[in-house]
């Protein structure tokens, strides 16, 4: 009995003393922070991806609450998208203009089938390392290295290497266009493009700048710079044997025609009727 009582008193005393100390310490070192920041931060996705250009979600919230109406327009959380930005704007009393939803697209179709491997790589699986000592898995010097640095850097699980194709595939429902893959790809194969109406978009899935014949030899789905697409829409430009479709070209109007007329299938139209593989 005696032991129990004394133990209770002793432990209780220690707890009380610690509590008092903690209370004063927390009072003394309390950092006063703008209530708005925590309010905004609560609305954000909280993945700290850095796609907005800030160090993390807290930093972004700080920037939002400090910004004036004009500065606020420059801030955009790609992960949360319009929905989140709308809420943030409401909380701060600003108006947020709607931005078009975007997604990452892979501008390469150098699959195991289209562009067979020319060597066997053994060692640490990293595209950036291989790009230092060679070009890609295939003969194409511009194509995908197929080792998945982009997959490892994607925080949203939107990328995975397709086992059969060998190249990464973007899951457009998961992709928040944070741009991490754009940055890490040693071949600069990713591009952030508008998602398009009903997910319909058209782009050239190739970055090869070699002359047509060589490009074609290296990869059966290469852009050969044949200029056919430029005749369908003059906004499309071919430079260094490589066509580029600007985002201003309306996918719904021209997409089907562009994809049908591309002799190698380098032009990918996601809304295409006759189903074909495309990233």
């Amino acid at each position, binding site marked *: 009995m005696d032991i129990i009582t004394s133990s209770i008193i002793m432990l209780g005393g220690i707890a009380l003393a610690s509590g008092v100390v903690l209370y004063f310490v927390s009072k003394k070192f309390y950092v006063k922070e703008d209530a708005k920041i925590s309010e905004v931060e609560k609305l954000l996705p909280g993945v700290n991806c850095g796609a907005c250009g800030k160090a993390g979600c807290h930093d972004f919230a700080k920037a939002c609450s400090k910004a004036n109406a004009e500065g606020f327009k420059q801030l955009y959380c790609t992960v949360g998208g319009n929905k989140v930005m709308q809420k943030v704007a409401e909380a701060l009393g600003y108006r947020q203009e709607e931005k078009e939803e975007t997604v990452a697209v892979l501008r390469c179709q150098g699959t195991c089938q289209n562009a067979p*491997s*020319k*060597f*066997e*790589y*053994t*060692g*640490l699986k990293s595209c950036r*390392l*291989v790009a*230092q*000592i*060679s070009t890609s898995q295939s003969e194409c010097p511009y194509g995908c290295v197929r080792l998945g640095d982009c997959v490892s850097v994607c925080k949203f699980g939107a990328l995975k290497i397709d086992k059969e194709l060998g190249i990464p595939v973007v899951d457009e429902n998961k992709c928040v266009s944070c741009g991490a893959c754009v940055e890490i790809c040693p071949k600069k194969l990713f591009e952030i493009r508008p998602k398009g109406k009903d997910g319909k978009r058209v782009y050239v899935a190739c970055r090869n700048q070699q002359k047509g014949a060589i490009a074609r030899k290296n990869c059966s789905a290469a852009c050969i710079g044949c200029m056919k697409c430029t005749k369908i829409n003059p906004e499309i430009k071919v430079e260094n044997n490589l066509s580029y479709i600007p985002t201003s070209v309306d996918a719904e109007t021209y997409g089907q025609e562009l994809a049908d007329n591309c002799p190698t299938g380098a032009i990918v139209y996601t809304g295409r009727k006759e189903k074909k593989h495309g990233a």
Partner: protein
Amino acid sequence: MLKLSTAPHLNTPTTTRGIMLDVIIALMPALIVGLLVFGMGALQVVITSVAGCVLFEYIICRYFLKSNPTTGDLSAIVTGLLLAFNLPSGFPISLTLIGCFVAIVIAKMAFGGIGKNIFNPALVGRVFLFISFPVQMTTWPKPQAFNFMNTDMETGATTLGILKHLKTDETAQMPELPSYLNMFIGNIGGCIGEVSALAILLGFVYMLYRRIISWHIPVYYVATFMLLSSIHWLLTGEIRHEPLIHLLSGGLMLGAVFMATDYTTSPMSKNGRIAYAIGCGILTYVIRFYGIYPEGVSFAILIMNAFVPLIDSTFIPRVFGTRRK
């Protein structure tokens, strides 16, 4: 098709498996002496322990982690041998298996397998057994003077146990201690692997020759302990503080050479290793001379294991072309 890879294109022939094999070879002299001194009882413990450790690691990898078993790297055999070396001869099979379970499943695999454990698995197994089954763990069969077939065991206290007893019971008669020669070659009571200083030294020399370990940890460990105990002995003059007895009997040599030098649970810089070894020496001295246990090596090493991350982040080697901070 040509192969492609980053430099370097050559590798040292030494592999993890090769290192473990070398450690096993280095443990052989101590194992042979243990078997000669303690006979069949020792053999039974060693076989149970090694088989148990390998089996537990295999089961965990195969059925729980669903990965390729890592038993091929032989580290489980090393753990099994070291655990057996820390048990008395004739230790019950069931309890040995419990020790294996604790060593492999709790101390090693639960932390993520080889290279990720914080505490030396064999020592965790031993200390668990030591605390849970103190009677069986301190039933020391007497050495049988290399009479291998004798299965009728007498039991008695270890040398360190006798010394400890002197402290607690002031009126006790001074019993006869084994000779230094017997202590050196291993004809004394104790755990299976710790009795022969000679055999452990042979293993130490082999590991140095094969560059498995550097000399720093064992030498600094033993030197620190000897220094402190010598001072203590000179001040008190009591036989129970005689440093040479402390060195030659008990687990100091085994611990310093084989347990404290475990790669995974020791620091990764030279200065860090020295600090760690000195810490082990001090703790062993404190536990043996002031604690209630006669033996302090296991606890000392385990406590220092916990400090390894701290030591690693404190003792950072100097980078070429920079000044030490």
